[in-house]
């Protein structure tokens, strides 16, 4: 296993998760090959690389989304701390994993419910019934998602009536309401206009000290702006991982350099 050292510019923090020799298969097609990586606690880690290189596939291993479909296979480990447990192990319940590692998708996917109920959803499925607790947590989550001021007077409205950017922030609030330890973002701004994108990026920067974040993006400027660490993937392999500054200023690998300088991808 290769060992990565965070650069001096990034703050040295605890490891939240360590990926060891991860392989992933869609049926017989191997989409991820021998991936080793570290996810640092309360830092933003960006996954970049050309389309189809396996970024989403990798991200979705972290909350076992692949378990939802047949013929998907994991090999290797994703160790989650402080439990020191391999979340890919057969003994681990994917639902327990998703209780702690939540996800925000490419396209905003609010539920056909009110704004309030969208955010309260995760709490309700965990059995929270007390109105006062729900209200407090929903407000907190909406504040953390920078949406509270815009929606506080219409919490009963259908979530579909919000704009795309607001819907995406609502989905972030929904994920935040249950205090996840890791938040996974899969190209969260690719369906949004530049202004909404800027607000989501700002939000991610604000969240970095509250929660560990993994974000997939095909936008390198975005990776440079929001992340502390960057992983460059190519054809199912992790080519280079390190502090974002290092990766963008002096990448060690020629492939990374070509991608970042825009020679392909």
């Amino acid at each position, binding site marked *: 296993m290769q060992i990565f050292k965070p650069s001096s510019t990034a703050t040295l923090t605890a490891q939240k998760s360590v990926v060891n020799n991860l392989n992933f298969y869609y049926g017989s097609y191997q989409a991820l090959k021998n991936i080793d990586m570290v996810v640092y606690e309360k830092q933003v880690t960006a996954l970049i690389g050309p389309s189809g290189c396996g970024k989403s596939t990798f991200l979705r291993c972290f*909350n076992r*989304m692949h378990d*939802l479909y*047949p013929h998907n296979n994991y090999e290797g480990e994703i160790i989650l701390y402080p439990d020191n447990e391999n979340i890919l192990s057969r003994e681990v319940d994917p*639902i*327990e994993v*998703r*209780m702690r590692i*939540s*996800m925000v*998708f490419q*396209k905003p*996917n*609010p*539920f*056909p*419910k009110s704004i309030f109920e969208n955010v309260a*959803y*995760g709490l*309700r*499925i*965990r059995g929270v019934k007390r109105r006062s607790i729900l209200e407090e947590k929903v407000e907190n989550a909406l504040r953390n998602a920078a949406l509270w001021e815009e929606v506080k007077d219409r919490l009963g409205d259908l979530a*579909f009536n919000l704009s795309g950017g607001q819907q995406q922030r609502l*989905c972030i609030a*929904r*994920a935040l309401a*249950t205090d*996840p330890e890791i938040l*996974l973002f899969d190209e969260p701004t690719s369906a949004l206009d530049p202004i909404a994108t800027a607000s989501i990026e700002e939000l991610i920067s604000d969240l970095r000290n509250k929660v560990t974040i993994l974000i997939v993006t095909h936008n390198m400027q975005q990776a440079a702006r929001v992340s502390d660490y960057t992983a460059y993937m190519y054809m199912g392999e992790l080519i280079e991982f390190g502090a974002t500054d290092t990766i963008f200023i002096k990448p060690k690998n020629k492939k990374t350099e070509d991608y970042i300088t825009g020679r392909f991808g």
Partner: protein
Amino acid sequence: MATPETRSPKSLRHSYKRNLKERSIEMLLFLAAFFSVFITFAIIYLLISESFIFFEHVSIWEFLTDTQWTPLFDDAHYGILPLVSGTVVSSLVALVIALPFGTIIAIYLSEFAPFAVREIAKPFLELLGGIPTVVYGYFALLFVTPLLQTLLPELPGFSLLSAGLVMGIMIIPYVSSMTEDAMRSVPMHLREGSYAIGATRFQTAVKVVMPASLSGIAAAYILGISRAVGETMVVAIAAGMQPNLVWNPMEPAATITTYIVQVSLGDLPHGSIGYQTIFAAGLTLLLLTLVFNILGHLLRKRYREIY
């Protein structure tokens, strides 16, 4: 690539040939749509105009309040209530079976069943839907009624209960297949949003997928209700064809549809008051189903789905 010189100077004008083709297709589509609307209105017109003859003899008040329906007796009474009660009770029994079971089957097939199970179960359910209703009728009379009688010894040989139960079984495939289609049309990314915060399959099905497909589910239920209200054969065979104003499913009774069949198969002369009753009964049935359809329409509008 064609240069401007090689193109005919009229290349931007309307193409006569294309126009003609488009127009004739449009016309054909219009005719098809018009024809079905026309038939519907023709039926409604027929029912209303024939009912007028009936209502010249019998007041609407009597029709709606008299508790007996004996148009063919010497002491004729023209109260629709006994037929309505038979229709409502048998339909309710059927729906108590069909809606929950249909929904549960749909949830299972759409959200839980592995691909192979679904592939086997779907054609099987469709097969159930294709069995002629007369077979269901005799199934009720010769199998379900005796079976029920071992549990409920006082159950008569003809009953709304037995007919309703079998009607319910008969309607399950309609409800389940339409409900399942509605649920499966919910995009996967909506489900993933639910799974991603730790929801189980069941929570996702009930709290996300069902609300998201509510209009389709409502349509399935309305179809189930319409089928129950309009069903003829099963009740005609297993429920006894006696117009009784009863609300107890353990009694024999007639429904609107069985009465219509009974009279139209008899030899009453057209124009006689006895014969005209079937139009009044038919109009009542139409209004009954119309109410359900409007309700369904309102429900659909209220819970219009947007993903």
